[in-house]
């Protein structure tokens, strides 16, 4: 496994993927903090995991499916009630192309 310092460009890339604005100070700080945490969590690279299956859920059972029966929907007013910006019909967002 990779034991290394995250560099600026990686932090910026991750912040972009996560849609988080970071200022210069935060980029620096995040690089140091994440490197420290990764340095610790990378101890699991010491383990021999050959042939070990991953566990996604601890109490494993098969997924129950839902019958295809309609239930109640929200009214439009309910759906839009908490929207930061709405025209009463839909949710208004800044144009993706802008």
């Amino acid at each position, binding site marked *: *496994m*990779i034991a290394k310092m*995250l560099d600026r460009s*990686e*932090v910026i*890339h*991750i*912040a*972009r*993927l*996560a*849609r*988080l*604005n*970071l200022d210069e100070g*935060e980029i620096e700080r*995040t690089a140091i*903090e*994440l490197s*420290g*945490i*990764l340095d*610790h*969590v*990378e*101890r*699991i*690279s010491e*383990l021999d*995991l050959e042939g*070990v*299956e*991953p*566990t*996604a*859920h*601890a*109490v494993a*059972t098969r*997924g*129950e499916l*839902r019958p295809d029966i309609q239930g109640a929907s*929200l009214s439009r007013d*309910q*759906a839009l*009630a*908490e*929207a*930061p*910006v709405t025209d009463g019909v839909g*949710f208004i*967002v*800044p*144009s*993706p*192309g*802008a």
Partner: protein
Amino acid sequence: MSNDPTALTAASSAALVKSGELDASDLFEAWLGRAELDTFGALSWIAQAGESPEQVDGPLGGVPLAVKDLFCTEGVPSQSGSKILEGYKPPYTASVVEALAKSGAPLLCKTHQDEFAMGSSNENCAFGPVLNPWDKSRVPGGSSGGSAVAVAAGLAPWALGTDTGGSIRQPAALCGIVGLKPTYGSVSRYGMIAFASSLDQAGPLTQDVTDAALLFSQMIARDPRDATSVGHQESIHLPDRRDLTGVRLGVPEELSGDGIEPGVRATFEETLERARELGAEVVPCPLPHAPHALSAYYLIAPAECSSNLARFDGVRYGQRVDPGDGLDAMYSATRAAGFGPEVRRRIMLGTYALSSGYYDAYYGRAQRVRTLIQRDFDEAFANCDAIVTPTSSSVAFPLGSRTADPLSMYLSDFCTVPMSLAGIPAISIPNGMSEGLPTGFQIAGPAFAENSILGIAHALESSIQFDRSGARV
């Protein structure tokens, strides 16, 4: 008996209501009065006086409930401790809150927490820290710190919290109360604002073990709205165990040796001695991969959270910051302003752990470690009935003492995280004092063995006779 019904445990109050000696509306009003005494920053919302809810004739007897902020409650602020959800009122109520109301535990108040349940001190709350009622200069633990303080200080008779890596057990320990993290899947997560989906589980924070059993007995259900919920294999009964004859308690050196404060260790040893006196056999019980649990946890939980928190984008609810430079700029500005530093840190960590080229090394690997940890527990339970450890390696620490170093804060979850990864139930009970502050004793059992660990906890509790009056306002 005392004329003050709020001096009773929840189970005792419920019994009095059912026998007709106590009026449920009076009980509700009395607890409203108690909730008003919050000087710890524990409560985020309190029900209106004079508007006590319709009485339900259920097993919980009308004893009202404090509920962690992250449970959605229709028309009531549900903010998960985050600025991005400030004032957010959901159009629906979480399944477990709904179920408890139907069983006779109406909503009394909501409690502050670490933002999106990420934290071990309650200092990561957008609405200010919660203070420990034993010593207001110290943290109450987290992330369910508000719920723990509400019960410890007597602001509420019992409370609902959630535990992802220790968020019920650790604050229970630091506040001198009982906290149960149930088997993953036994309680519906529908309506719980998610932190890490494969780990989050709701559970009770209560004055004693009997209250925990009573509240939990009404929480378990297979919920058709939560595909990961399975309900429970047996119904939960109120514990009456007084001795531990024939019980084998396993002590993992990995979680009870190095790194545990001497004072905490001393109370742990005392409790082990009590267990032996009660007839238990105490045996060593290795969990060889437990030291790696924290690493696996701090990859899995942030990875899941990075995805779970993607929905907070300023479009359908919550805060929006729009610099007027298009959609992506709005997203990035909204999320940077809405999330606190710890949440941003974990989103970054989790995004990194899932990003192209790193999945196998981080998330994939952590899930394999999870398998090893689960196997450790399987093998351990072949040899003992329950595993016991200190709940937290330390007593409540001073406010601000760990905020500068995220890793030291993460290490607070050292003893509780392995059980979370394995999905097994674990309870923390107060087991004494160190430096004038309570310590916690953790009892973990195999999946769905809640009755068993509640019984053991009850026997020890009866022997320990912890005095929690020091925290009551």
